[in-house]
């Protein structure tokens, strides 16, 4: 979806435009937020952040009527910034509550550093290439199950497959991935 398409839809019906934009970019925004937050956030926090991002995007257009030359880049920027802000807020929350017996915050109390280093980057790059080599639908199933932590039933719903088929494919794909990565010197 481009900025022009969004504008045209908006003129017809703002609700339609919102729904269409959400449909197209939901997975993208979720990926950005989940990637930044999942170590410190509960699923509800991630949902909250994603909905905040879309509300901001809808609001920005509604209020300013801006034309976004590159809508995806714009959305990506907004999402990333929101995610980083949420990360910081959650970290602060965990620090404020450190020493508190509330288990909800105990999981935040690590010193996860969002800085990355070159070794990590290289490992990730190899990992993604090996996942891609699995081909579809296995590469998506692998990400859904072992990165997004979704159940086989949920994946089955998203992929229009049977849960048993997802379980089987996920297990086989994981084994294949482990071997492939081991050959590249990476242990899962």
């Amino acid at each position, binding site marked *: 979806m481009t900025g022009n398409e969004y504008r045209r839809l908006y003129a017809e019906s703002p609700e339609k435009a919102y729904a269409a934009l959400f449909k197209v970019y939901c997975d993208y925004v979720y990926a950005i937020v989940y990637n930044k937050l999942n170590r410190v956030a509960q699923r509800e926090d991630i*949902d909250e952040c994603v909905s905040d991002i879309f509300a901001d995007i809808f609001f920005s257009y509604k*209020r300013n009527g801006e034309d976004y*030359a590159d809508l995806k880049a714009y959305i990506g920027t907004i999402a990333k910034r929101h995610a980083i802000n949420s990360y910081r*807020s959650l970290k602060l929350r965990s620090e404020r509550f450190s020493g508190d017996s509330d288990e909800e915050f105990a999981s935040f109390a690590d010193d996860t550093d969002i*800085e990355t280093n070159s070794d990590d980057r290289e490992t990730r790059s190899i990992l993604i290439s090996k996942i891609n080599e699995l081909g579809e639908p296995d590469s998506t199933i692998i990400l859904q199950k072992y990165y997004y932590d979704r159940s086989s039933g949920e994946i089955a*719903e998203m992929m229009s497959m049977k849960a048993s088929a997802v379980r089987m494919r996920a297990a086989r794909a994981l084994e294949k991935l482990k071997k492939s990565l081991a050959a590249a010197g990476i242990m899962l």
Partner: protein
Amino acid sequence: MRKDRVLNMLDNAEDNIVERLSVPALTDNEKERLLKMSMSKLEGMSMNINAEEEVRGVDVYRRPRWHRFVSVAAAIALVSGAVGTGFLLKRSGKKPEDSFHAVVSPEQTTELTTADTVSTDVTTELATENTVIPGTSETTADYQAIAVDLMKAMNAAELASSGMLNTDANSPLASDSNYFKIVDGNIKGFDFSTMENVRNFLTDNFSGKFYEQHSYFIEGSDPFFKEGPDGLYARYTGRGSIYGWDKYEPEIISSSEDSFVARAEYEIAGTTFQVDMTIVKSEDKWRVDSATSTLSDPDANNTNNSNPYVSLCKSKIEDKWNELTNESDNVSLDFVFNDLDGDGSPEFFLMYGNGEYNYQIDAYTYKDGALKAIGNLPGSHTSFAVDTSSRKLVLIHAHMGAGDYSWYTMENDALKVIKNEEFEYQEWGSNEATSRQDINYLSKGCIYKIGDGTVSYTQPECPINEIPRSNEINSFTLDIVDQLYASAAE
């Protein structure tokens, strides 16, 4: 970590990796629920926009000129659990004079460091004239000496409220973490360490309109100073309006028995400004009653009035100004020029909005006698900067202890990001990432409106770990666009 998340090494990945991770990860029901949440929030934002602007307006009022830096400071306070609060908030052990050095040029610092003796010198020097003002008991030299003392008080007030107080970033006020304990309240010889001293400072030096402009130090629901259980606390920054006096040599332009007007000029980025201070005597004490900044010689500063490009930029600013001020009493416009394509005609960037949450940046180039849009970018928590080598635009986004630098160029009449670097910080300017020498804040102009007050100002290019000098004119003026353009075109 959940046991099945064997791919956790993909967390916090690079943009291209995240893009690959963009697979369906939500069920239809979850998507529907998230869309509803977004719509509900949107509805709330729209309904509450007026109230929100009002609330945010208070925030903006406290930080009109340096709101971007303040955002950084606020972020740090949040991030670190009040460990560091940005370069505006000084840590314990640093003298106010050290802080002041970050604000002014070395030359200015030298002169200001010796300013304590200027009053005497000026008095001595001017006393040779020692002309008694008709109908008064004071001489011109007397008035000048009085004005010098009050100028120092004005300067101290602005410095105190611009983050130059020495506060302990590790000691936020328990009831409001926006306030930090003052460990040394001395600013250029004025003591801001107790509420009584602050009150006395205000009543001793200011009256009338000028007092009202600074009453936010101690009054209102959100004062700059607050008393805590163990002493005085201050916010990380206030309004910030440093008069850029290089020397304290006021000229007395009118006088009577109980009032006189002193004029003092200062220069910033090639533009000379003059401040007319109305100083009034009451209860046998002289106080600053009002101060007005204006361009010293507007015509001398307008070097490009006939430039059609600059005229178009001015029109764009004016149009946006009119549009936004029709919607809200809180408006801010920032504008810069930067020659992205190296053709000698700098591109024009206009950042605008009603609050930090909705800033946008429009970018234009000059083509075929008209402004041509080359891009639109989000401007929240964003500052204009420049790569000191390539002289091309860099946008700094910094918020909540993290941010990124984005280098821009222009290709096919569109903005293009050349590279992007992320960073983190505990205290702005304290680490390598936020004090790098290859990026400077770009010389910029700003016009903002808060309630009934409108202010225009420019600030020159300066290192990113320093606070830019700037001036303020208490009116809407587009003259500053000419000066900015001339500087960029050079």
